[in-house]
């Protein structure tokens, strides 16, 4: 009988797999199941109430509030149970000798013997047993006390009700060594760096994301609705992560979404949040007449004629009230809204959860009210049990809409124009104006009339999970997941007529190429199949667990892009017949850019523990990736972990009673990274359109890219040792970890002399080590009726390049210079050290200066490191590193009766930050024509201890010495540490009696703010902004030339009924 059933299920699964049509029918059917449990639950409550031999009572919490939906079951009797009603009352039929079990999420389960009583009033205590807390790990769960890996948990409460744009934002500061840096606050172009435990490769350092057990495309994480998240587990060490094998070396982020709870009545939650975001521009220009005066000083300091006459300066001074800065003119306060609705509940067999979310963030750019993003989330999660079979179906859909400007460099173009009253971006009659600084276009014209990019991104996730209990302790689980991604972009670039000045009657010629229509479509799907055998059984003091599985992930994507220049004058877009020379499609057009990968894996984990005292665990993954040649395809990633709960030892009995729990754990393993292009191992010939022409007819050209067959994984050997300790009856919990990672076979291109003629293929050649520590402290405190909760975490990591092609590389980013050298951290700042400013000609006479240089008092003096009398490349120092260290987060929550207060601080304890360009150099390089207020402390004969060198005109030898020698110096170096009040929230929950009158179970209102306060050593730049990506690569927008940080003020309401 048993055998038959198993056979049927297996073959059913097989049949299902072969029949894609089945899923077409099954998925909607499962979605419809959502209706069923509601009826089921009601029916059961009714039937129980009709029983005559009943125990009645109420369930309340410690403060006397009734608890609704508490599950009441009879121990040992399956299928008998009820839940408390709206007033916390229950009634259940049972025998006099039965034991009733009261369980409720967040509260300790209580078992009460009936003992002939008819009335049992229960007070449930909040569950503070951290040790029994369930921890989600790869392909399973464990408990806090038996966890032997380095795993951080981030709970829903850390994420909910915060005005974050996406999940990555929400995780900033939430766990030690989860380093998140926001590079741009632009809602249409959010860029964040996500590093777990620092940098361990020169390639992709972003973690692996796993959503409800399915490995997800990196972008999917931010498509989730933060309100749908139940829990996030961050796997940091080899013990926890090795089961994800070839992609786990940067850590793994496991997301579990919310589901309904068994025996819970249908609960409807509605929350809304609304607020305003102010762009926080941290630097500001001086008054126009001051600017002109100082520019004259810069010119005369360099021996040039002054730029402005005294009359012109007087004129600017007379009109200073009419001045307005372009940067202020293109930014505005924008609205952000977030609404969520969810329904969840369950019977004793079936649970369900349905949620809807809507998020809308306007852009802070002026010019088009459509600029901004909207996200729509829909999610269902249904679980049902049929005998030994447990079925779970999750369906989620996300739609992201985005409309953004086609303009670029808007901030810097706006910021670099002096505030002179006669500079205007738009004339009174609505024409866009140019001036001698912006001679091609202006930001306002780009924003208002330049067209837009419109994104319509769809993401569908279906996850079906069947679990069959085979024998006691042994489960077979089959998972089928599909991510379907469909992204579209349509771009309409419009030419803008710009007038050279207000009097001009003819606009500057409008570019034909400014009229461009392009559409891009991208579709991708990721099919994930898993079959897992899971065993867990306790024999007396021995616990044995085992997991074995086979999985495959197949990813397929293809995209196309079509672009036409010129547009139909009536339609405003390119048409089928827009085919003149002007209308021809351009080189960027492609019909099919496709990509296919497959990853097949065997994975397993074996664990044994004795008496909750000794733990040992071995896990592995054996991966085969299609990115590699078949001879180098398979990689084996093992790990072993050990745990010892000292406090369980008999000799520690006194310690356990007086102090608390103490556990030591350690792990070692090998993790992988396969961060190369899908087809990097092939030598490919690519055809390029329009490479050359004969007789003005274009012809194609062919180029080639070399590949290499024997590419394989990067391997990171990872060691972790940690201690978990609790004090004061679990009120204080401390976790401390140290880790060491060494990555071999880093995939890099060997340094090839350019005589070779082309780039060499990727190869496994680099080596790097990375170590650091994590500390988190959690403290719960109750003083009278006030509940406090403190969470503090801090982490540090530092890396060292061990092997690098060519042993070192110096790279230039305009005025800055960086060094990657064996023995130094990756991409360190490099350059000269300042030795103050020259104070006299005598000092110059006696000092070393750069080759070919000419300086004057007030110019920067550099340290002649090798004392050879000249400043050259041999005098450079390693000046610092831009990767954040001592990153920390601090969360404090207070609850007093209905009032709640929460604040969240986040920051960085140590970071070097080099800036360049106009924020450092006044009148930067004939590009910016401004001096900003923070630059006024410059050297003059009477201000010799200044922050900045004397003013000099761009291009002059002094200017080149101070800023532009292309070698970098610590003049550009800032202290990047900061402390920021990321979030502040004050809420009030209405007394239940009031809520009830309005037909609600719970009503909470709150006000909140984000980025309210920042402590930093630099007033003029957001200390969080960085110009480097998660692998320290140079990532464009730099040195404050980006969208300003946003300050949020808002309010919200949570309703439950």
């Amino acid at each position, binding site marked *: 009988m048993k055998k038959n059933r198993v056979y049927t299920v297996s073959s059913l699964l097989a049949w299902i797999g072969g029949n894609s049509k089945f899923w077409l029918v099954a998925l909607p059917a499962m979605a419809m199941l959502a209706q069923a449990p509601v009826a089921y639950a009601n029916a059961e409550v009714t039937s129980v109430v009709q029983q005559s031999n009943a125990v009645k009572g109420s369930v309340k919490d410690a403060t006397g509030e009734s608890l609704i939906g508490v599950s009441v079951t009879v121990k040992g009797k399956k299928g008998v149970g009820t839940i408390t009603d709206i007033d916390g009352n229950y009634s259940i039929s049972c025998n006099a000798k039965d034991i009733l079990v009261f369980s409720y999420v967040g509260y300790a389960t209580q078992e009460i013997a009936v003992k002939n009583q008819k009335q049992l009033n229960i007070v449930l205590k909040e569950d503070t047993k951290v040790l029994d807390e369930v921890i989600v790990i790869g392909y399973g769960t464990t408990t806090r006390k038996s966890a032997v890996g380095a795993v951080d948990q981030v709970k829903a409460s850390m994420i909910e009700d915060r005005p974050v744009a996406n999940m990555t934002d929400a995780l900033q500061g939430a766990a030690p060594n989860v380093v998140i840096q926001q590079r741009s606050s632009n809602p249409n172009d959010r860029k964040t760096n996500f590093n777990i435990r620092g940098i361990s490769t020169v390639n992709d350092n972003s973690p692996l994301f796993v959503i409800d057990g399915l490995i997800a495309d990196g972008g999917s994480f931010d498509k989730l609705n933060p309100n749908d998240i139940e829990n996030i587990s961050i796997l940091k060490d080899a013990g926890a992560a090795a089961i994800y094998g070839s992609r786990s070396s940067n850590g793994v982020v496991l997301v579990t979404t919310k589901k309904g709870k068994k025996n819970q009545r249908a609960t409807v939650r509605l929350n809304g949040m609304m607020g305003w975001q102010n762009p926080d521009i941290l630097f500001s220009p001086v008054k126009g007449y001051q600017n002109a005066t100082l520019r004259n000083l810069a010119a005369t300091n360099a021996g040039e004629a002054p730029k402005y006459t005294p009359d012109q300066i007087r004129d600017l001074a007379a009109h200073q009230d009419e001045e307005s800065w372009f940067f202020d003119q293109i930014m505005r306060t924008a609205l952000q809204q977030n609404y969520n609705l969810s329904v969840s509940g369950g019977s004793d067999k079936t649970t369900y959860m349905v949620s809807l979310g809507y998020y809308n963030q306007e852009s802070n750019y002026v010019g088009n009210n459509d600029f901004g993003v909207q996200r729509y989330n829909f999610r269902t999660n249904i679980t049902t049990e049929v005998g030994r079979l447990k079925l779970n179906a999750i369906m989620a859909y996300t739609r992201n809409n985005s409309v953004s400007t086609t303009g670029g460099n808007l901030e810097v173009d706006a910021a670099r124009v002096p505030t002179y009253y006669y500079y205007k971006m738009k004339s009174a009659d609505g024409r866009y104006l140019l001036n001698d600084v912006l001679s091609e276009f202006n930001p306002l014209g780009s924003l208002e009339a330049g067209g837009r990019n419109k994104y319509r991104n769809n993401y569908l996730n279906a996850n079906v999970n069947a679990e069959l209990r085979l024998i006691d302790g042994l489960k077979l689980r089959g998972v089928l997941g599909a991510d379907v991604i469909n992204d579209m972009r349509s771009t309409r670039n419009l030419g803008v007529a710009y007038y050279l000045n207000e009097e001009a009657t003819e606009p500057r010629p409008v570019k034909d190429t400014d009229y461009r229509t392009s559409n891009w479509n991208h579709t991708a799907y990721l099919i994930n199949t898993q079959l897992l055998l899971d065993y867990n059984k306790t024999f007396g003091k021995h616990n044995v667990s085992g997991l074995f599985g086979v999985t495959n992930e197949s990813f397929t994507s293809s995209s196309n892009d079509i672009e036409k220049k010129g547009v139909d004058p009536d339609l405003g877009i390119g048409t089928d017949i827009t085919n003149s020379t002007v209308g021809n499609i351009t080189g960027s057009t492609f019909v099919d850019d496709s990509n296919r990968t497959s990853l097949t894996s065997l994975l397993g984990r074996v664990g044994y523990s004795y008496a909750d005292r000794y733990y040992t665990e071995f896990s592995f993954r054996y991966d085969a990736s299609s990115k590699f040649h078949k001879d180098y395809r398979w990689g084996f990633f093992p790990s072993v972990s050990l745990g010892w709960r000292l406090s369980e030892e008999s000799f520690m009995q006194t310690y356990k009673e007086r102090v608390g729990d103490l556990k030591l754990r350690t792990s070692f393993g090998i993790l992988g990274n396969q961060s190369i292009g899908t087809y990097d191992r092939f030598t490919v010939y690519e055809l390029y359109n329009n490479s050359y*022409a004969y*007789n003005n007819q274009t012809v194609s050209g062919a180029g080639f890219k070399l590949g290499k067959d024997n590419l394989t994984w990067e391997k990171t050997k990872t060691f972790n040792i940690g201690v978990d300790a609790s004090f004061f009856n679990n009120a204080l919990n401390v976790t401390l970890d140290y880790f060491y990672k060494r990555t071999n076979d880093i995939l890099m291109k060997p340094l090839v002399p350019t005589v070779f003629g082309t780039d060499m293929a990727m190869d496994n050649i680099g080596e790097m080590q990375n170590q650091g520590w994590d500390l988190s402290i959690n403290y719960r405190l109750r003083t009278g009726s006030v509940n406090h909760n403190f969470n503090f975490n801090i982490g540090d990591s530092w890396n060292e390049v061990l092997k690098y092609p*060519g042993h070192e590389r110096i790279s230039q980013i305009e005025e800055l210079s960086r060094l990657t050298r064996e023995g130094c951290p990756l991409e360190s700042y490099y350059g000269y050290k300042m030795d103050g400013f020259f104070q006299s000609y005598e000092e110059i006479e006696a000092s070393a200066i750069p080759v070919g240089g000419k300086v004057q008092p007030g110019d920067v003096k550099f340290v002649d490191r090798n004392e050879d009398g000249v400043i050259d490349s041999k005098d450079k120092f390693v000046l610092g590193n831009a990767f954040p260290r001592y990153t920390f987060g601090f969360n404090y929550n207070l609850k007093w009766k209905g009032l709640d207060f929460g604040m969240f601080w986040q920051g960085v304890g140590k970071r070097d930050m080099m800036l360049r360009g106009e924020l450092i150099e006044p009148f930067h390089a004939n590009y910016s024509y401004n001096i900003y207020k923070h630059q006024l402390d410059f050297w003059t004969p009477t201000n010799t201890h200044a922050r900045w060198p004397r003013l000099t005109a761009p291009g002059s030898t002094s200017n080149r010495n101070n800023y532009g020698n292309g070698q970098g110096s610590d003049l550009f170096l800032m202290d990047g540490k900061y402390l920021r009040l990321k979030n502040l929230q004050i809420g009030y929950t209405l007394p239940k009696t009031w809520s009830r009158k309005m037909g609600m179970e719970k009503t909470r209102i709150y006000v909140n703010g984000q980025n309210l306060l920042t402590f930093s050593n630099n007033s003029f730049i957001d200390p969080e902004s960085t110009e480097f990506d998660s692998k320290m690569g140079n990532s464009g927008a730099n040195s404050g030339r980006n969208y300003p940080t946003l300050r949020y003020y808002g309010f919200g309401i949570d309703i439950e009924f």
Partner: protein
Amino acid sequence: MKLRKYIAFAGMAVLMLCSCNEMENAPMNKFTDNSYWTSATKAQYVVNMAYSQMYNAGRMWSDESLSDNVYDGRSVDDQRAIRKGMGTPSLDIFKNEWKDLYGGIKTCHVFLEKVDLVPNMDAALKARMVAEIRYIRASLYFRLTNLYGAVPFFTEDITLEKSRSVSRTDRETIISFIHQELEDIKDALPTRDQLSEEERGKITKGAVCALQARVYLMDSDWSNVMLYCDNLMNKQGEYGTYALFPDYAGLFDEANEYNEEVIMDRSYVPNLITWGEMVDMIPLSRGGRAVSRVPQQSLIDTYLMLSGKTISETGTDYNPAYPYDNRDPRLTATIIYDGYDWSGNVDDGSKNVVINIRPGSGTDAYDGGGNGTSTGYFTRKYYNPQAPGDQNSGMNIITMRYADILLMYAEAVHETSGMTEEVWNKTIRPIRERAGFTADAALNFPIGKSKEEMRQIIRDERRVEMAMEGLRWYDIKRWKAGNKYLSGKVRGASFVDENKLDTRKFEEARDYLWAVPISEINLNPNLAPNNPGYGN
């Protein structure tokens, strides 16, 4: 027992569940090494790529910036730093040119190595393609050796190991290879007259001759310069028919591409293959953006008066108050100056547009900073009214033209036996006639000039005729005239604040060659020592 069965079922189930991709998947939209060399068409694509790597507008303008014709006034780019005497082996321009030129050579070598894989290829077609590739390789090596002197030299695809140890080959060896190559291939190529219309722009026998002459010119090998110029002047039946295009300004009109004067050019096509340097060289009022590369006063001063006199010789009719009046018409065809009659000289449909550059005269006025001109001039030659507003131009860049042949011939004759009236009348005179001179004093052979005076006349003629065509730096280099032309104060128009212009510095012992990029020496110590005068 039971367990094993479960696992068996499980395995089966997983296999069937897999709608997975295969593990062996080659790219679907790109050719791999095995699937590429299958047809003559695909071989031709590689030839086309090599053509595109041979030369481009960027190189022409960059070379021009190395000379005394123009000045990069907006920011200190590498060319300007070199001219300020601040060239160091770590300049990007040294690195990038080196990389690009060897990249082109790679394409040639891969072609030569693989073309035999193409099955059943027509022999004549293959021979012609091979000849084109060898011509391109010769051009690339010529440029390399002009810039860097002795360079790594190899004639088949280089291995990675060899690229790390190859040392530099002296210039003479490379130059004689170039001559030998050009000699070997010339008969596999058609003449200009044999080209079908669709083939215009391809490498011809005439282009081989012109390149021979130019390579010999660099070494002042006058007899060979005369020999190859003579081929093009007097043996046009064998080497192709060439003549001066009647209109100097029209030579640089998009409509007149592939005219009878053009021996070789670099193709561009409107909207599809374009070059965009012009946007930073023309007046703001005509679509200029951030004007950087602007003509120098010394170039303007080199243009003769219509009378045939220079602006400074005795009896000149030059009037400093009206410096641009009665000048060689090529000045107007090349340079935009204060009071320039735009509408009269640029066929862009505008009316009565005059470019005013004097301070305070409006949008294009000199103001000593900002986005305007730093010398008081803008560039006219190669401005293309047909280009769209962003100035991305589809106009071909002429790399060799017949006037250059005449000028090379004139110079070679003068340097060997001295200029004669006969040679003058075959070379300088037709060039001046075509330029628009009519005065006898300007057209006739100047009598009574010393050898040195005549040399200057020929060199100045070359400067103005070929201005803005990327040749001037190489002329100065072969004349060893760096000190004369490339040192001292850069000058602009009379109203320009000269304090803002550079003082140039030329090191005779160093600056005729570029430095081998320091990054390359670091990778391959056999490239050391660097060229004389360059530190590290």
